[in-house]
C-alpha cells in the first residue's frame, strides 16, 4: 500500500545523493577542493532521522556528507555556494566547506570542525530549549570514531543528568578514516555505552530509512516529553573513501561489495515498488530532483566570487 512518508523519504535520499553527485563533478572539474567527505551509502540515517524532527528543532551535523543539512531543508544553491566560494554560499562565499554551514532559521547550528566538539554544544542548545520551556529537541550526528572523544562523556553525562532533549545519533560506518571499529572500540556497539549514562541505547539498521525514522520518532517523543536523551546507533557504511582521493588500501573490496548490496536508496526503491508505486512515479521523483539540482548548481556557478578584502569580515560582531 502506498505510503506518502515513504515516498518523501525516498525523495530525501535521492536529493542528498544527487546533490553530492553534482558536488563530486565540481571536484573533478577542479572547481572546489577534494576536502569533502562523501556521504554516499549513509543517506538513510540522515534522511530518516531529520524527517522525524521539526523545522525549529536543532541540528548539529558532522563531516560525513551533507545529507543531514539537506534533509533539514537548507537551500541547495547555498550549499554549492559554500563549496564553490560564491556569493550564494551561507557565508556569501567565505565558507569553502562543511564546517562553515549554519542556517539558524532551520535550527542548523553548524559543525564543529574538530569532531566531537559538537557534543557539549548540543547539550547547551538542549539546555536552552529546556530553560525556555519549549519542546524543541536537538539532534546531534556523529561517527563511531568521534564517539571515542572525551567530550561525549562530558556532554552525555549532563544531558542525562539534566534530562535534556537530545538525540545522540551515531552513524557507525565501520571505519574511522583507516582504523576499523573493531580496532578502536572496547564495546561491541556504541549503543552499549548508553547504560553508563543512564539513558536508552538503541541499535538500528542504518541502511533502512524507515527503521531509522521509527527509532528517531520514538527518541524525539521521549525528548519532547522531558524524559531525556537517547543514544541511537545506526549501523551503516560509507561507499566512498574518507575523502575524495583516499586510496582506501585499509579495507577489502569484498566488504565494500557486501555493503553495496544494502544500498539504502536501492533497498527503499524496492520497497516502494512492492507497495504500489510504479517505476514511472519514482522516475518522476528522480527527474524533479535532477532539475532542482541543476538549477541550484547553475545559480551557484553564476554567482560572483568574493573579493580578497572580504577575508576580514565577520571575525568579531
Amino acid at each position, binding site marked *: 500500500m502506498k505510503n506518502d512518508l515513504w515516498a518523501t523519504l525516498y525523495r530525501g535520499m535521492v536529493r542528498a545523493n544527487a546533490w553530492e553527485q553534482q558536488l563530486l563533478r565540481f571536484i573533478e572539474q577542479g572547481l572546489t577542493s577534494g576536502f569533502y567527505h562523501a556521504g554516499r551509502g549513509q543517506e538513510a540515517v540522515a534522511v530518516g532521522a531529520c524527517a522525524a524532527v521539526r523545522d525549529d528543532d536543532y541540528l548539529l551535523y558532522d563531516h560525513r556528507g551533507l545529507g543531514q543539512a539537506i534533509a533539514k531543508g537548507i537551500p541547495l544553491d547555498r550549499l554549492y555556494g559554500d563549496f564553490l566560494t560564491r556569493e550564494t554560499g551561507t557565508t556569501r562565499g567565505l*565558507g569553502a566547506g562543511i564546517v562553515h554551514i549554519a542556517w539558524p532559521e532551520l535550527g542548523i547550528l553548524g559543525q564543529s*570542525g574538530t569532531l566531537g*566538539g*559538537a557534543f*557539549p554544544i548540543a547539550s*547547551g*542548545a538542549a539546555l536552552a530549549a529546556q530553560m525556555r520551556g519549549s519542546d524543541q529537541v536537538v539532534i546531534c550526528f556523529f561517527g563511531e570514531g568521534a564517539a571515542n572523544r572525551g567530550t561525549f562523556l*562530558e556532554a552525555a*553525562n*549532563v544531558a542525562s543528568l539534566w534530562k535534556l532533549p537530545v538525540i545522540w545519533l551515531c552513524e557507525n560506518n565501520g571505519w574511522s578514516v583507516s582504523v576499523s571499529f573493531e580496532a578502536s572500540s572496547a564495546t561491541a556497539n556504541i549503543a552499549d555505552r548508553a547504560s553508563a549514562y543512564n539513558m536508552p541505547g538503541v541499535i538500528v539498521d542504518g541502511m533502512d530509512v524507515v527503521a531509522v525514522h521509527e527509532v528517531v520518532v520514538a527518541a524525539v517523543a521521549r525528548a519532547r516529553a522531558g524524559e531525556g536523551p537517547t543514544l541511537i546507533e545506526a549501523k551503516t557504511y560509507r561507499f566512498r573513501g574518507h575523502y575524495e582521493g583516499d586510496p582506501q588500501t585499509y579495507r577489502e573490496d569484498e566488504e565494500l561489495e557486501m555493503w553495496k548490496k544494502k544500498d539504502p536508496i536501492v533497498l527503499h526503491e524496492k520497497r516502494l515498488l512492492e507497495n504500489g508505486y510504479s517505476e514511472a512515479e519514482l522516475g518522476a521523483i528522480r527527474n524533479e530532483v535532477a532539475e532542482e539540482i541543476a538549477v541550484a548548481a547553475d545559480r551557484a556557478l553564476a554567482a560572483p566570487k568574493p573579493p580578497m578584502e572580504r577575508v576580514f569580515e565577520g571575525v568579531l560582531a
Partner: protein
Amino acid sequence: MITLGKAINMGLRRALTEDPKVLVMGEDVGKLGGVFRVTENLQSEFGEDRIIDTPLAESGILGTAIGLALRGYRPVCEIQFDGFVYPAFDQITSQLAKMHARSLGTLKLPVVVRIPYGGGIGAVEHHSESNETYFAHTAGLRVVTCSNPNDAYWMMQQAIQSDDPVIFFEPKRRYWDKAEVNEEAPSLGLHETRTVQEGSDLTLISYGPTVRTAIEVAAVCAKEGRSVEVMDLRTLSPLDLAPVFESAQKTGRVVILHEAPTFLGLGAEIASQITEECFYSLDAPVLRVGGFNVPYPPARLEEHYLPDLDRTLDAIDRAFAF
C-alpha cells in the same frame, strides 16, 4: 572600600539583575560561591537555574555555554584556575572563537570566560599560570584583564554586554586588594588603555596583577628623581596602543612588565609595534620584564619567578644606562 573579588561579584549581580538571559556556570560556583568566593550568594539570589553548578568538565562547560549562547543566552563561565582551561581549549579556539566568522555573523557568541590567573598565592603549576597569550593569539576572541576593583566591576558588565566572546582574566593575587568603586558610570570602555599616572622620563606598561607592582616601581623611581609614566593596558586583544605610542614618543624609554613568560609573551608584540611606530623617538631599546620560560615553579620558589620591584627597577636602570 571594596575588594577586587567582591567588585566582580557586584558586577555579575548587576548584570544578572538587568538581563534575565545572563547565566553563571562552572565548577563550584553555586552553593560554594566559587573557590575564591567571586560568585558568593549569587545562587541563593538568582536560583539554581541561573547559577549552575556544573560537573568537573571544562570542555563540557564551554560547549554547553556555546549552545546556550547560540540560542540567546549570555553565559558567564568560570574556569576555576588558569591551568584548568586547557581541557576547554578546543571549545574556545575552534568553536567559540570561530563560529561567528564561520557563519559570517549569523551566529552570535556572547560568552564570557572568567579565568583567575597568575601566581603569588602559594599555589602550584596549573593554579598560578599566566596563559593570556594563547587566547590573544586567537582571532575571534576578545581578551581583557582588570587590575583594580573599579575596573573589575565595570569591565565585567561590559564583557557580558559584548556580543563577542570575551576571555576575562582576573588577577587572583589581587582579589583581596581594596579600593573605591564608582557605581554611577564606567570611566573607560572595555577596550581602552589607561594612563594610571603620568611621567616624563620612562613609560612602564603593564596589565593585571603587575599594575600594582608598576605603581610601586614608579614611587621608588620618583624618589630617585626619575619620572615614570605607568600604563595599564586593560585590553589584551584587541590592543589599544595609540596612547602607548604617544607616551613612548614623549618619554623615549619603555619597559613592559607582565607575569607571563617574556618569550613570545604580549610584551614581545607590544615592543615590536612600539619599535615600528616610534623608532626615531626611542633613546633605548624597549625592554621586557616577565616570567621565565619554564613551567611555573614550586610555591616556595615563586618569589624568584614573579617579576617584582627589583627586577623591574633593574630593567629601568638598563633603559637609562643605554
